[in-house]
């Protein structure tokens, strides 16, 4: 609950500090890179959570990370502020909220497509154009191949999931067999 409040507050603040819409997507990518660094290197979490490590050392490490990922000034300032306020560990929540803020500002929606085989360009374009028409927003398709789906594809648009995979059909069939009444 608290992390959601903090994530939302700083994400909105970062969005407010970036006036140019074109800089939003790079800022999000930079935030994601920093979050990924924390995921890949768990010792970073311990380092920033440790109360006896001086703030300047933490700031120096954050600065190095920002240099490595060539983070722009907006995100760099945010990270510095988070370090001063001991909120660096909420970076992931901030990134998640910032993603939704960016999507809102750019009138775009992220669609996760799970399919049994890689989508052809034509299929991907058809899907994108149809979704654009239905949702009246720019579509960002994130594809993922999962052979265990056997055939077909499934979509995740925000909280809405539409599953048209063979695996789901078989699961429905299994449920109907299990629930079938025997006279």
């Amino acid at each position, binding site marked *: 609950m608290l992390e959601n409040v903090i994530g939302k507050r700083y994400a909105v603040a970062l969005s407010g500090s970036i006036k140019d819409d074109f800089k939003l997507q790079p800022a999000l990518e930079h935030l994601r890179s920093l979050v990924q660094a924390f995921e890949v290197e768990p010792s970073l979490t311990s380092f920033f959570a440790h109360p006896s490590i001086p703030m300047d050392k933490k700031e120096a490490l954050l600065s190095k990370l920002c240099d490595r990922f060539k983070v722009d000034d907006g995100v760099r300032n945010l990270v510095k502020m988070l370090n001063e306020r001991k909120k660096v560990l909420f970076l992931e929540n901030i990134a998640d909220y910032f993603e939704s803020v960016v999507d809102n500002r750019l009138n775009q929606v992220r669609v996760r497509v799970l*399919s*049994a*085989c890689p989508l052809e360009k034509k299929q991907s374009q058809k899907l994108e154009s149809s979704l654009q028409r239905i949702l009246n927003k720019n579509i960002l398709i994130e594809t993922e191949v999962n052979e265990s789906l056997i055939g*077909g594809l499934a979509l995740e648009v925000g909280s809405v999931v539409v599953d048209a995979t063979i695996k789901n059909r078989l699961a429905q069939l299994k449920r109907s067999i299990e629930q079938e009444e025997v006279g």
Partner: protein
Amino acid sequence: MPQFEQVSVFSSLIFWSLISFGLLLFLLKKYAFPPILEMLEAREKKIRGDIDGAEELKKQAEEMKKEFEKQLATAREKAETIIHLAHEDAKKQTEKSLADTQAKVKQMQREAEHEITSSRNKLLAEIRSYTATLTIASTEKILNRTIEENDKKRLVDESIEEVIKELEKTHASS
């Protein structure tokens, strides 16, 4: 008669005898008879009183007897009522006990039937689940083995149509 020939001899004797008899009678009447008569009267009164008392007692005894008989009749009536009520109670108790036993038996029967039905349903559900799992697993294996690349492409095309229709429906209703 020679006796009467001697009257002149005994006339004074007879006279004095008569006088003394009269005197005795007078004295008796004056002093002896009244207390005797009083005593006799008192005795008579006492006897009459005793008889009256006895009559009264007899009456009382008869009344008491009647009262006792009445009480006895009431007591007998009460006893009969109590016996009748006891019979009724015993009958009711027996009927209640019979009804309770019947209800318990029915409840036990129902529970047994429920248990049998539950076990049957559980078993059927397990069989259905096992059959479903087996069927789906076999189908998955067969599909994985038989689906070609073209089929996969066609399935994706069909799925795109399906998800678009579904999303249109969802979007229209929201």
